[in-house]
């Protein structure tokens, strides 16, 4: 009977219920899309950093890795430590071209696993680093720079020759420029690198390696991938922003539900009085109001998940966003979004429910 009352009331005001449901659905879709994209971006950035490595060494207490400066000597020494199987110094920089104000630049050595693992669309890995003005472009970067193998491309204040084009699954890399490390150091006026990515001979040595870095280079820090993703302030800001934007969307959806439920209660004061005269308790009356909002929230969340997923797949199909959108939906994220929608819906109905239980039957029924 409760469900009957709930669905009857929702059906009675179809348009209002639909608008409210749409508000929740769009909020959920927005939250899902924003959080998934940003988490995907974080994952991609994290992937750039690690690229198969286990540890990242960078300057302690920097807010942004672009400002990190790891001395060349430290990179050389750490690479020589017995526990280290492989060490890749990487210099991150941002350059621009005439049409693209931000292009990520990777200053790497020819041994860097990024180029070794990439699919070479044109050129050969052996050609990388042979001449100082040579660059390898990600496939998308080659597209927007209209570059092909052997062409000269203006990047920043220099002109570079394209010696290779690679395809990678990572959006930042696919839209980026790979320069020999030495050339990038000159280009960006830095002596060292931004980070060193480390692969150890044994994972059992991780704690010992971190301790060794702490002792030998007090101004550097070594973090495991997951540890880095958790603690890097830029990631924290991005995550907080994503949740804040999504939260604002949900709050607006909640206001929509509140508005709908207030209108719903105001237009059936008499009906609530009838329920009261027939023995409905405050809890039972509140349950019908909260039930309505819960139905709106759940249906809205389901619709929002569908819309959000479709939007993510749609964005992924946009060529310009290739590699930037990770559509791997996380069940936990979906659960959180649904629960938040439900909480929002119920919170939005608290005032109307409170109003409904204060309805005095005698006043509502006096004037027939």
């Amino acid at each position, binding site marked *: 009977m409760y469900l009957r009352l709930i669905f009857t009331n929702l059906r009675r005001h179809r348009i209002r219920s639909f608008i409210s449901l749409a508000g929740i659905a769009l909020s959920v879709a927005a939250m899902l899309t924003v959080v998934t994209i940003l988490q995907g971006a974080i994952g991609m950035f994290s992937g750039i950093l690690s690229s198969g490595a286990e540890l990242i060494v960078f300057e302690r207490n920097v807010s942004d890795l672009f400002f990190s400066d790891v001395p060349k000597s430290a990179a050389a020494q750490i690479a020589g430590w017995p526990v280290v199987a492989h060490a890749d110094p990487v210099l991150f920089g941002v350059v621009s071209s005439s049409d693209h104000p931000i292009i990520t630049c990777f200053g790497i050595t020819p041994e860097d696993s990024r180029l070794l693992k990439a699919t070479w669309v044109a050129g050969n890995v052996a050609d990388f680093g042979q001449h100082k003005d040579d660059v390898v472009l990600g496939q998308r970067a080659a597209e927007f720079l209209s570059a092909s193998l052997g062409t000269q491309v203006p990047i920043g204040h220099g002109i570079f020759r394209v010696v290779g084009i690679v395809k990678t699954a990572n959006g930042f890399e696919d839209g980026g420029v790979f320069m020999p490390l030495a050339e990038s150091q000159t280009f960006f006026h830095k002596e060292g690198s931004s980070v060193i990515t480390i692969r150890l001979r044994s994972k059992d040595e991780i704690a010992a390696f971190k301790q060794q870095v702490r002792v030998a280079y007090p101004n550097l820090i070594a973090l495991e991938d997951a540890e880095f993703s958790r603690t890097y302030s830029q990631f924290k800001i991005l995550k907080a922003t994503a949740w804040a934007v999504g939260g604002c969307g949900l709050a607006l959806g909640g206001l929509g539900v509140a508005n709908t439920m207030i209108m719903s209660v105001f237009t059936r004061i008499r009906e609530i009085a009838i329920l009261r005269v027939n023995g409905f308790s405050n809890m039972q009356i509140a349950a019908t109001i909260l039930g309505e909002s819960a139905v709106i929230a759940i249906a809205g969340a389901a619709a929002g998940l569908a819309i959000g997923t479709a939007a993510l797949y749609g964005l992924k199909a946009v060529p310009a966003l290739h590699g930037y959108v990770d559509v791997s939906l996380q069940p936990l994220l979906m659960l959180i979004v649904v629960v938040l929608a439900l909480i929002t819906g119920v919170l939005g109905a608290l005032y109307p429910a409170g109003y409904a239980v204060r309805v005095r039957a005698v006043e509502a*029924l006096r004037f*027939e």
Partner: protein
Amino acid sequence: MSSFSNSPAEKRVVIRAEGVWKSYDAGSISVLKGVDFEAQAGQAVALAGPSGCGKSTLLHLVGGLDTPDHGRVAVNGVVLNRHRDMVQFLRHEIGFVFQLHNLIPDLTLEENCLLPAQAAGVDPRVARERLNELTLRTGLQGRLKHRIQKLSGGERQRTALCRALMNRPRILLADEPTGSLDEQTAAIVFDLLLNLARGEGVTLLMATHDLALARACDRVVTMHDGRIHEPQPVLS
């Protein structure tokens, strides 16, 4: 919770109002002015009088929908006040029939009638049996799945009567139950109301303008200007 002490002779008094005053709009509209009233178990009592004399207000006070400014109202020996569990009272002791049936229009006849049973947590099977019994007696058995909008005025009022009796209340309060019906339908509904109340042993307190209907009750109490003006002797 306080009680009236009924003497053995008064054992069957189920409704008692003592010195009841009620006003609205911060006292500017005085509706009841010291009403003393009582009704015995199983009686059908008609509250007669002109509009605004306080009939409905007295019914609301007896039904626990409102509280008196002064004086007290007791039902089944227990004073209605803020200490009393009014939800249980409304579920099990009182049934209401209003002039405008007050049914929920988008629900079916069956769903409307089952509302009190649902509120009281009555076993659905038991509730359905009771509903079948009541609809059979009121001639509504073929209309169970019909929405209220599809019912005639008389059918709606009979539905309201079924709903009021669903939980077997001991007191039935009817506020101008035939006031919105034509003469012929009103007579049918009133006969049904009276017969059902008598058949179930329910105490009926009915506000009405219609003196002819009032006279068919066991007792007629006339109200005027907020007072029990001329209590009539019990007729039967």
